[in-house]
């Protein structure tokens, strides 16, 4: 048995300068995963935030060293589980680049549509969860109504709702569902009608605006120095969309705008994601009637072997730039693989932008960074 003094620490002993250290997580409803933040407070003001990671670390990089180039893709769905299609695409593109595999046009177009649907689903979930963190419960149901349509489309075509594992080196695992185009068109129609509801509920909301405007400001120089990418960097005015910088799949033939905001605060990060969903819809509309007939997978050898050398592939996930770096020794498995995950770099800026603000603002700052913990830990 513990004595009472061992269990209850003296609350008057606050350390030097009245500092109070509290542990946020690993089981905290607003971290949406097992993120452990050690927050040092002075009164209600944040003095320091120290992330402690590793609660969901599976050493995917080490695991991949013993998996073949066909197998390792399935593990990557478990990194950023909200962008699993896009993770799969990154790995497939890298193997295709390393082996000069020709991908059929049909596969390229379907991949692009699926990637954009994934991005919308991810942002939908984020809007719901983010608004809930700030105390608004209703947007969660609104967002999940549309997200449900996407997961149904995914279920029809890929057989799974979250970890799809549908994109393989050479193209797609199997052809799309016969109803795919009809269902996507129905989704696009419904989304365009309903997107104004989010604006009414959240964007114009006085409470939401006063809790996010001017909170967690990140300047462009800091965003670059901290390696931030995706909506976090674009809200600070940094052009970093990989779909524009190094187009892959069918992104070179579609028209869309890279959404840029300049304020750099939590509200700007929110606005970037809302506008990005509209751009994704624009991409889907351009491609959905243009899916070419033909094969859905290119000709590949049974055993995939990458040539000796180094390969790097970047893609734009819903959270930012995902990089896959492979060192190959010419074998059937990678010699070393590194995933440059967007969440890891975006988390590293949290201490910097939340310092000096009140602890209540931490929810808005952390929420708009859109952290997915398995992506950070890998």
């Amino acid at each position, binding site marked *: 048995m513990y004595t009472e003094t061992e269990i209850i620490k003296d609350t008057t002993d606050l350390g030097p300068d009245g500092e109070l250290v509290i542990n946020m997580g690993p089981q905290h409803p607003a971290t949406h995963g097992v993120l452990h933040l050690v927050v040092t407070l002075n009164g209600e003001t944040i003095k320091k935030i120290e992330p402690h990671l590793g609660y969901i670390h599976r050493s995917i990089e*080490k695991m991949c060293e013993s998996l073949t180039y066909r197998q390792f893709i399935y593990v990557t769905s478990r990194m950023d589980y909200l962008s699993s299609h896009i993770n799969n695409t990154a790995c497939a593109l890298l193997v295709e680049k390393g082996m000069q595999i020709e991908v059929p046009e049909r596969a390229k177009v379907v991949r692009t549509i699926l990637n954009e649907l994934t991005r919308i689903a991810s942002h939908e979930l984020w809007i719901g969860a983010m608004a809930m963190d700030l105390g608004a419960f209703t947007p969660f149901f609104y967002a999940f109504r549309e997200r449900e349509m996407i997961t149904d489309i995914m279920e029809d075509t890929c057989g799974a709702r979250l970890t799809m594992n549908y994109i393989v080196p050479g193209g797609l695992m199997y052809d799309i569902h016969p109803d795919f185009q009809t269902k996507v068109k129905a989704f696009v129609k419904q989304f365009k009608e309903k997107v104004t509801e989010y604006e009414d509920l959240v964007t114009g909301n006085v409470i939401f605006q006063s809790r996010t405007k001017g909170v967690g400001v990140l300047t462009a120089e800091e965003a670059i120095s901290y390696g931030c990418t995706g909506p976090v960097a674009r809200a600070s005015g940094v052009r970093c969309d990989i779909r524009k910088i190094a187009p892959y799949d069918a992104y070179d033939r579609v028209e869309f705008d890279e959404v840029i905001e300049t304020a750099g605060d939590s509200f700007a990060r929110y606005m970037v994601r809302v506008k990005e969903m509209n751009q994704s819809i624009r991409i889907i509309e351009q491609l959905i009637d243009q899916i070419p007939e033909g094969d859905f997978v290119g000709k590949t050898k049974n055993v995939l072997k990458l040539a000796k050398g180094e390969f790097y592939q970047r893609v734009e996930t819903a959270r930012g730039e995902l990089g896959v*770096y492979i060192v190959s020794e010419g074998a059937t498995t990678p010699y070393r693989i590194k995933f*440059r995950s967007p969440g890891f770099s975006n988390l590293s800026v949290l201490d910097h932008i939340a310092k000096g603000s009140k602890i209540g603002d931490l929810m808005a700052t952390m929420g708009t960074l859109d952290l997915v913990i398995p992506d950070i*830990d890998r």
Partner: protein
Amino acid sequence: MTNEEIKTYITAHTPEATFDETGEWLTILVESNHLKPLAAVLRGQPMQLDFLFCLTCVDYKTHLTMVYHLTASSNRNINIVLKANVNNADPIIETVSDLWRTAEFLEREVFEMFGVDFLHHPDLRRLILEEDFNGFPLRKDFEDPINMIKL
């Protein structure tokens, strides 16, 4: 800047640097003691490679290689891979976290996974692993009999 111009520019600063153009991007290999001065040159004018988008380490059994992927936020078409070999018995290299703040976390990850010691790092502690964990998991000689991650 073309690859040839970059090579001339770098050779002027670090004559020992060797180049490899077989990959997608220009790769520069330097000795570990030349890495920090060269990184500072690349970060400054006129190259302005202000975005470190990947920092990692590769275990080649005989030695470790630190790999830095650099690009310029103003011109993302310039991509450079900077490499430096360190010995695997006592790996020490200068930190680049004062040039690129993102390196602070990435170097902490390399520190615990490969055991590379970063000189002058502001806060070199473990980030992912527990305090009492033995060994460096991403090194090739690491074996864990309890949590098998090999097939």
